[in-house]
């Protein structure tokens, strides 16, 4: 097991990220709703650089009581990262795909000590 020092904890603001190389592996560390989440920078689709993609709120289409729809909306409760290669989208907190749950990001372990963020591989 190896540990890699990334940065001090406060260097990653809420909504921000840090994508780093730890030896041969690349990890993206994101802060969402105050908490840090780390994912391998490897999209399960075609191994694209998922952690370097744009971040969007989840898109929803509310259905009213008549089963009719009118607008698309953003749901800021669920923040997604979209792979810049082909657009596959994943929840930044759970790593789950925006569609089928069977597609997931691969989580990396983090350690926080004395205000410093470490990736543990």
């Amino acid at each position, binding site marked *: 097991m190896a540990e*890699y020092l*990334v940065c001090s904890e406060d260097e990653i603001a809420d909504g921000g990220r840090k994508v780093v*190389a730890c030896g041969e592996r690349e990890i993206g560390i994101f802060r969402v709703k105050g908490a840090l989440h780390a994912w391998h920078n490897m999209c399960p689709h075609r191994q694209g650089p998922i952690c370097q993609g744009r971040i969007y709120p989840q898109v929803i289409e509310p259905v009213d009581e008549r089963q009719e729809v009118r607008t698309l909306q953003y749901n800021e409760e669920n923040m997604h990262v979209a792979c810049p290669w*082909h657009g596959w989208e994943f929840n930044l907190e759970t790593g789950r795909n925006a569609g089928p749950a069977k597609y997931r990001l691969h989580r990396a372990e983090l350690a926080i000590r004395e205000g410093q963020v470490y990736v543990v591989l």
Partner: protein
Amino acid sequence: MDISNKDRARELPVQQIDVFTDTRDILAHANRAAKKRGFEDWLICDVDAHHTETISWHELVQYIEDPVIRHQAMLFHDEKMGTASYGLNGDMGLKYQDVGGRIPHQAGIREKVDDGVHRDVTLSRRAMSALGVDYMVLFPTPMLTLGLHPQPEMEVYLGRAYNRWLIDKVLSKDDRLKTLAYLPFNVPKEAERTIEEFSGQPGVIGFCVPSVRHKAVHHNDYMRIYAMLEERNLPIAFHAAYHWQDQSLATINRFLGMHALGFVWCNMVHMTNWILNGIPERFPKLKSIWVESGLAWIPFLMQRLDDQYLMRPSEAPQLKKLPSEYMRENCWYTTQPMETVNMKALQLTLEMINAESQLLFASDWPHFDFDLPQEIYDLPFLSEQAKRNILGLNAAKLFNLDPTVRKTL
């Protein structure tokens, strides 16, 4: 706790990929994958990649042959404000391929280009190097709907100008870049003239009919064109696209649906006419390539046409074998966008089309649904020889290209 340099994470220079990111950074993972798989000794031909010709439209219109139209086009670009490219039709504002900015390389490639050659040469070279490609066949992008132009002569003006411009500015600068030259198919006599003029020009390895158009590929007007290509041993490609004016797709409201069906439907219609009217019987040595419709449509059409043909052979009297047999023996297919969610279906598809000899790798870079060579390499059900054929050797044979590996990874 002491942390040595080797235990420090290194921040990547690109934190978020956008339209200004260098192609080599966008495709860094692809390059690593190519090295990992040992592609340095694999011939890889990318039979369908793109550039955005409209970025150079002010330059391209100077190659319009007709002096009056050329003058109009040049003044249009010098003086008009807030307009699209001169003479181009199409759904210019309905191009949602980048999924609302999620796929930046589809929206635009705005990286720095200062190599002293045309930007399309530099950008193509960067993509080839990153993907591990030896030869790249370039197609235009917005021009793929020119077949629907209300002025048939505009397809001639712009198609010929594009061919001349592409050869002069791009293909003649790097012999690894190729094209299937634009055929102004709505004006058959001009298409014949195009074949006469551009056959043998630098980088021209065949001709392309953009598939969205309402002309029947079996019309007698086209027989001379097919004979000319067969005599010259040059393939004809039907390159798919979509367009929102297609009445058969008029109820579709999401780009996902338009793209999924539009890029297939045009080629399904042409293939049906191509086979049922016996074009492969009339021109048995003519090689047709079906580009950018993916692969999943082919088994459906094979089954459907075979069944219907056996019930109604009197309506297709030229056929001597099943439609599916022509489709697997006389037709070639490009891989992209290769549907992979159901691998069993893909395996069956590759068997049905005799992929070992008829399938040609294509990336479609830089479009949103681009494929990588590794996707062929990683297929668990193909032999190494089949993979080598699909990735490059089939194309080398079809286009008479030197099969020597040209790249350095």
